[in-house]
């Protein structure tokens, strides 16, 4: 187990280094932050002064090593727009994003999994077709379209909810729904497929033939076996809790990490972008690690795989 964890963590560290390096090179080669932040109308001498002050006039390799050295010493840099520590800027936006993504995750799980299971258990019925119709619609409609449709209905036409902003809990309802509905649709489709595959297995037939009540077959045999692909998807969803609401935050003017990332990328505010990327990579890697561990819990055969592999 420790060896498994060690290699997972090593892989995670390599992933994070690659993400940070790739982002550095791409962001630096695709635009000069000084010109972008100062704008098209800034006097050339002001742009030069900005460049010199932030070390942007240094060779790229020197900037990279300087930046990487600082990261290793725990300094994630300062925002070039703001002058403040990048980590502070990012951390102060996290609660706003989690206030959207956590309830949205609950909607995804609470709506998507039961709908998928129900559709699988009533395969080819009108209920199955209706659930899948809605799931395909929810899956294919882009979140910005869905968000605008919800605003048109609930804010503009009915006047029940605000159209955007973050002043009260009511402001969060539409963005949560927008995020939740799309994710629930994805989960419903995956859960249905997984359940259908499991329900066709011989052990399900055997259990039924033995006279085990259908409810017990579903709860005891079908659901645990169908959970593995579903857990994989949920793992991705958990991993994207921090930066999975970029579009929705823009549509609803929600001041979270997603909007910060958009603005930082547009301005080539490298320290802030890197900080968000580090956070996202760390969240994603952790979520994947947890998913791997859950696999072992859900399927005892997977727990023994490394040892079995080693025996060969």
């Amino acid at each position, binding site marked *: 187990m420790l060896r498994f964890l060690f290699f997972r963590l090593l892989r995670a560290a390599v992933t994070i280094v690659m993400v940070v390096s790739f982002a550095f090179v791409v962001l630096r080669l695709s635009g000069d932050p000084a*010109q972008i932040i100062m704008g098209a109308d800034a006097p050339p001498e002001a742009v030069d*002064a900005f460049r010199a002050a932030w070390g942007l006039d240094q060779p790229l390799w020197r900037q990279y090593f300087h930046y990487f050295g600082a990261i290793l010493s725990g300094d994630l840099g300062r925002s070039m727009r703001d002058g*403040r520590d990048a980590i502070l800027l990012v951390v102060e936006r996290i609660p706003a994003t989690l206030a959207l993504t956590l309830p949205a995750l609950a909607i995804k799980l609470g709506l998507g999994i039961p709908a998928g299971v129900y559709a699988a258990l009533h395969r080819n019925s009108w209920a199955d077709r209706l659930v899948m119709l809605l799931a395909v619609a929810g899956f294919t409609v882009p979140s910005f379209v869905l968000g605008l449709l919800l605003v048109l209905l609930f804010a503009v036409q009915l*006047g029940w909810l605000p159209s*955007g902003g973050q002043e009260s809990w009511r402001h969060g309802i539409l963005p949560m729904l927008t995020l939740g509905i799309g994710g629930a649709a994805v989960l419903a489709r995956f859960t249905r497929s997984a359940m259908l595959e499991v329900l066709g297995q011989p052990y399900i037939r055997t259990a039924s033939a033995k006279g085990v009540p259908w409810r017990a077959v579903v709860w005891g045999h079908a659901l645990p076996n169908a959970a593995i692909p579903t857990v994989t998807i949920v793992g991705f969803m958990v991993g994207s809790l921090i930066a999975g609401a970029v579009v929705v935050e823009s549509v609803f*003017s929600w001041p979270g990490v997603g*909007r910060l990332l958009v603005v930082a990328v547009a301005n*080539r505010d490298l320290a802030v972008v890197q900080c968000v990327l580090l956070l996202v990579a760390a969240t994603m890697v952790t979520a994947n690690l947890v998913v791997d561990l859950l696999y072992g819990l859900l399927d005892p055969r997977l727990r023994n795989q490394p040892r079995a592999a080693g025996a060969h």
Partner: protein
Amino acid sequence: MFSRRAILAAPGLAVLPRFAVAQADVRPAITIAVQKISNTNTLEVLREQSNVGERVFSSSLWEGLIGRDWLGDLRTVPGLATAWRRVSDSAVEVSLRQGVRFHNGDEMTAEDVVFSFSRERMFGTTLASAQGRTIPIGEGMPAPRPGKELPPEVPAVARRAWPALERVEVVDRYTLRFHNATPDVTLEGRLSRNGSEIMSRRAFEEAATWLDWARRPVTTGPYKVAEFRPDQMLVLVAHDEYWGGRPPLRQIRFVEVPEVASRINGLRSGDFHFACDIPPDQIPGIERDRAFEVQGGTILNHRLTCFDKTHAALRDPRVRRAFTHAIDRQAIVDSLWAGRTVVPKGLQWPYYEGMFLADWEVPRFDLAEARRLLREAGYKGEPIPYRLLNNYYTNQNATAQVLVEMWRAAGLNVQIEMKENWSQILERSPTRAVRDWSNSAPFNDPVSSLVNQHGPNGQQQQVGEWTNEEMNRLSVELETGTDRARRRAAFRRMLEISEREDPAYTVLHQNATFTAKRREIRWKASPAFAMDFRQGNWGV
């Protein structure tokens, strides 16, 4: 049943609510949705070099000695100064308005004005210069307090605005003299420009860091900063001691809503009182509902197409001239702007007053002339790249597509290359040829636009796109000359060079900005980005 204390307190309780009601501020609080509040995340006029900043800064927060008629024709009007007079070709004496209160309650005096133009706040360690010569100045630069160091771009911007300002002399508590190192007829204009606004010295000194101050500047405007959350919102509240009368609004809240559709939906749902930055194609849809109207129009900004004369295909000026003649500008105005803007008279504005050349025109639309010029230049259809940003300017993509077709009709083979940011647009390489830009005029003289943007220190020459020896000589004459007739002649010649003979750019149309609001709100838009919410421009 009733205690003695309760009985004694009863009359007081009965009176208190009435007293509170009488004191309650019943002025409205409004919310304005904008695409962007400030690109630099500060409210410092010298750092924010974008048009969007003007919306928040001008007329509401910051004020200069010489103001502008925001609701009229933008001509200069008394601001924090009641009068000004020329002492010499290079000096102006200013009489301050008395009794002006800063947001912190202090009275504005000559000391605050001097500090506003000081090295500590404005120029840092930069030195004044004129005609390439550094001007020695006696004033030393004291080491700034830790945390109070100016961002390096602030002195650079300040020097661009005031290249040869030598000193500001206090004559008495309410009188000052601005001394320039060279003769300059634009000193009054420079006093009215953005970047020359006045701030409280005490507030700057009391702020812990420069950034703290730049996010809550203490000024004299009708509204003061209550809360600023960068990239999110700015809350201004009434400054009731404002010298121009009690502001009509209790609070103005600017919120950043990057999506156009979200701004319009927020207006229609009642979340916002105003929605700014409305593209022209959205106006009919908004006004279909009689409850709403869209105001606004032309602003002090022209859209240009710029040329890189070092590009192989553009070296011959006849090819660039062909570009300028192949554009049907009025068709662009009519089709993409629904006629809500105009084709201006070159890179100038009527508010230049005595320097405005009313008989000047942009190159006429003449396809035959364009084809003739290309034939004479021996242009054989070589591809000419057109670096384009994705709708940085309103209608930018559509305009670019129209332009490419118009140029094609003349025989020019222009190919659009989409770019992501200004750095990519300006990157010096053999593929840089044609690009978009817009130019403003921060004050009422061509020095503020033609010299500033296309002269020897202007962006076009600094990035190596274009230069012209005669233009550079005339730029100096325009900056330092004092004879109006000679300056007008120099300006005309400069327009001839940069727009006709050796085109650096060609003007497409005047820019415009549009603001949607509920029809019952009686408020008038300014012919600028600035939104005026002072007394006299509000009613419901």
